[in-house]
Each structure stands twice: as C-alpha cells, then as structure tokens.
C-alpha cells in the first residue's frame, strides 16, 4: 500500500499535509503520534471512510481513491475502527458473521476466531452491547479478521483498556501476520506498538515527523518527533 503526498481535510480544517508512506506486503507498520496528529485520519482515508479523489492512495499498484469504503473491503483492505464500534443490537456471533459479509476467500472462520480469542466463544450468543471494553475490542478485531484481510489496519486498539488486556490483544498480532496479512497499527501506547512493528512512522500535526525501524530509533528521536520539541 502506498500513500503519496496526501492532503486530507476533515470538516473545516486540513488534517494531513503532503503525507507519504508505504507499507510492503507482510510488514507490520506502526504509526504513532499524539492526539489529533492525523493518524486516524490517514487510516480512514485509506479505508475509504474519508474521500480522497486523485492518485494519492494506491493499493497493490492501483489507485483506489475513487472507491467507496465497502468496495475496498472486497479488495482486502479492512479497518478496525477507533472505539471498537461493534454492532450493539447483534450478538457476538452475528457481529462476526457480519464481518464475513464480503465472503472473501481465506482461512479465517468463526471457529478460528474463537480459538484465538476463547473469551468470545463463551459470549457467543450475548448481545455485543453487554460486553466489556476488552471483550468488545477482541470482537472488533475478530470481526475484521472474518473478512480475510490482506491489509488490516487497526486504530488505537489499546484505548481505554487495562494493560493486561492490551498485552493479550497484542499477543495475537504476530499470529495474524503469519497468516499473510499485512498490518498497520495506529497506537498511542508507543512501547507496545514498537515492540511488534517492523517499521514505524511518527506523525506530528498532520505530517510525518519520523520514520524508521524501531531498533534504530532512540528515545530522544521519538520524543522529539512525537511532541515536536
């Protein structure tokens, strides 16, 4: 996936200024940055929730800017949105079934999701509204996996969750990559994100302020890029 010099507006203001980044197949890329830096805006643009006509956004070589979000899922671009957004009037099982609505071929199924997140199996017929934050996040991830994504983008999955739960969720990530899924992870929890990522970008006020492999980035680099000092 490639993003080239992308400008993106959100409501009345400009959220992204000439952002360029690329993600190679099979990578895990982390995007970190403070609140409002534009990380979510980027993911939403790639997912198609925010429109971006023009050649700026490309997937596997072709421009996807004109496609509406639901079409991009058919291509294998799946977003686990910020705030989980599970469907409250559906059960856990039904949420997963909706995740598989696109019927993309692949190895993910409800049984496999249950084996990765056993807690979901226990709650299979409960209404999604009745789940705790961590359970809902697991459900949201499982729901995204049901689409058999080639590119899975996760927006702030650690938000509002206890550290132990976050550890558990991140434990599942390498397994997902091993399936052949490319991952882009937006995170406020810098430590967790850099621990799993192959490469990282840091966003500051709508621009890329730092990029590189986690092992090569010093704490000072990161702090400077994160806070703009």
């Amino acid at each position: 996936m490639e993003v080239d010099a992308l400008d993106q507006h959100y409501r009345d203001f400009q959220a992204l200024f000439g952002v360029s980044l690329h993600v190679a197949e099979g990578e895990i890329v982390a995007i970190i940055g403070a609140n409002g830096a534009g990380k979510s805006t980027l993911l939403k643009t790639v997912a198609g929730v925010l429109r971006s006509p023009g050649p700026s956004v490309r997937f596997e070589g072709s421009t996807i800017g004109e496609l509406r979000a639901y079409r991009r899922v058919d291509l294998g671009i799946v977003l686990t949105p910020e705030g989980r957004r599970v469907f409250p009037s559906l059960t856990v099982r039904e949420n997963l079934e909706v995740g598989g609505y696109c019927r993309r071929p692949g190895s993910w199924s409800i049984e496999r999701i249950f084996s990765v997140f056993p807690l979901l199996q226990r709650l299979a017929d409960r209404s999604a509204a009745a789940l705790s934050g961590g359970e809902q996040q697991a459900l949201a991830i499982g729901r995204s996996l049901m689409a058999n994504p080639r590119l899975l983008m996760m927006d702030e999955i650690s938000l509002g969750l206890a550290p132990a739960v976050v550890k558990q969720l991140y434990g599942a990530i390498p397994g997902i990559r091993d399936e052949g899924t490319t991952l882009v992870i937006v995170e406020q929890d810098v430590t967790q994100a850099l621990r799993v990522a192959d490469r990282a970008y840091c966003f500051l006020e709508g621009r890329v302020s730092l990029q590189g492999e986690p092992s090569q980035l010093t704490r000072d680099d990161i702090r400077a890029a994160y806070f703009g000092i």
Partner: protein
Amino acid sequence: MAWLNTIVQGVLLGGLYALFATGLSLVFGVMRVVNLAHGVLTLLAAYLALVIVDLTDVNPFLALLVVIPVMFGLGYVAQRLLINLTLAGGVLPPLLVTFGIAVIIENTLLEVFSADSQGLNAGRIETVSITITDRLAIGWFPLGLFVAAVVVLGGLQLFVDRTRFGRALRATSDDREAAQLMAINDRHIYAVAMGIALAVAGIAGVFTGVRTTFGPLDGAILLIFAFEAVIIGGLGSLWGTLIGGIILGVAQSIGAQLSPGWFQLAGHLVFLAVLVIRPTGLFPREGVAA
C-alpha cells in the same frame, strides 16, 4: 354479546393497521426517517391495483403480483435517487422532502382520478363469513387479512433475524459507517429497506381498497393510523406494532359502536392516552426513542 363481535372486528382490523404501520416503523428503525409520504404511498398502491383490475379484470388479490414488485421498485429508486440525499442534512430535509413527495403524489392522484370514491371489488369473499355463535360471525375477508398480516410480519421478522441480509440491515441501522467497513453498501441497504417498506404498504393498500372505498385524500388518515399503531405498540418492535394496531382497531370499533361519528376520534383519544401514560409505547425495544 354485540360487544364481543365489535371487539373481534377490531382485532381483525388491527391486522390491517399493523400492515400500514410496518413500513413506517421499518424505515424509521433503519434510517431514523419518518416517511411522511407513507400514507399516500399506501393509497397509491390501491390506485395501482385499481388500474390493473380495470385493464385486466382480474381479482384484486392477483393484482398484488404486480403491485408488490412495482412498489418495491418505487421505494428502491426513490431512496437511492432522492431520500438518501437528504440523510446528511439533519432532521429537517428528510421530513420536508417526504412531505413534498406526499403533496405531489396526493395531488397527482386528484388530477388523474378525480376526487371520486373508488373501490376494489374482490367478489364474494368480501361478504362470506363464518358463523360462530348466533351473535358472532367472522368474515372470511377480515380473518384472511389478519392472517396475512401475521404472516407478513412473521416473515419479515424472520428475514431480519435469520438471514445474512437481515444481519446487514441491523448492522447498518446500528452504525452506518461501521457497516461500510464490513463491505456493506449502506446506500443499497437503505434502498432495499425502503423497497420492503413500500412493498408491505402495497399489500396494505390493496387490502384496504378491497375493504372500504377510498379517495385521493385518504393518504393523511392512513398515515395517522399507521403512526398511532406504531406509537401505541412501541418503537422498534414488529410484534409491538401488531399489538398497537389491534388496540387501535378495537378502540375504533368500540367508538363506532357507541356512535358512528366517533370512529376516528376514539382511536385518537386512545393514542393520546397512551402518549400521556406510557410515551414509549406498550412494548418498546430498549434504546429506541420516539
């Protein structure tokens, strides 16, 4: 025992009202839009059946074979081309646009068909009845109508609860944007929902055309009956709508028994009473507010 007869008639009438209300309730549940043209569209179906019957001389119920798909198509197209465009602007545009559609259709009917009363003749079935006791007789037609209503409601409930599309429908009602992330074409879903709503309204329209005479200005009262059934029964529940329809039907029948002119008023008063005592209706689904 004349009262028992009255109540039974009211219950059976309730089936018709439930059919009126289903389309209104479905559209509101999925899109949070109150379709002010719903009554007029129900009426349009009756006129459509009238035209078909005039041209082909078939039984009105057979006309349903054409009316249902046509109404579905009408709903689908109207939603895609018009109503979907109003959804971004807040509460006012959908209301005003559907009101405009209602005005247009009602006056078009007036122009084309004049203000005369019309009726659909379904033949003997309208008058044949089963005699239960010497005070209680149930007409085949009202009974069939009630059964049809229950079947349609049940079918719709099953469709929404058990099918893949029904899940997509419920997901889109919950969270339109998140549904898009599941490869669900939300515009299409909305259009299908409107199509279903109008198809059911089509069934209701044909049945009402058989049951009584109708004229171009009746759209208003049909909308009001549908609305009262929805509110009495409680938002968000199809079976609640059936109960609401039954209560409305019974109230009206009792009112008519007391004095012929009180038919409508009795229904309105019961509606207002429910509004005062239990504004959320009798069987509301949680989380859905009027």
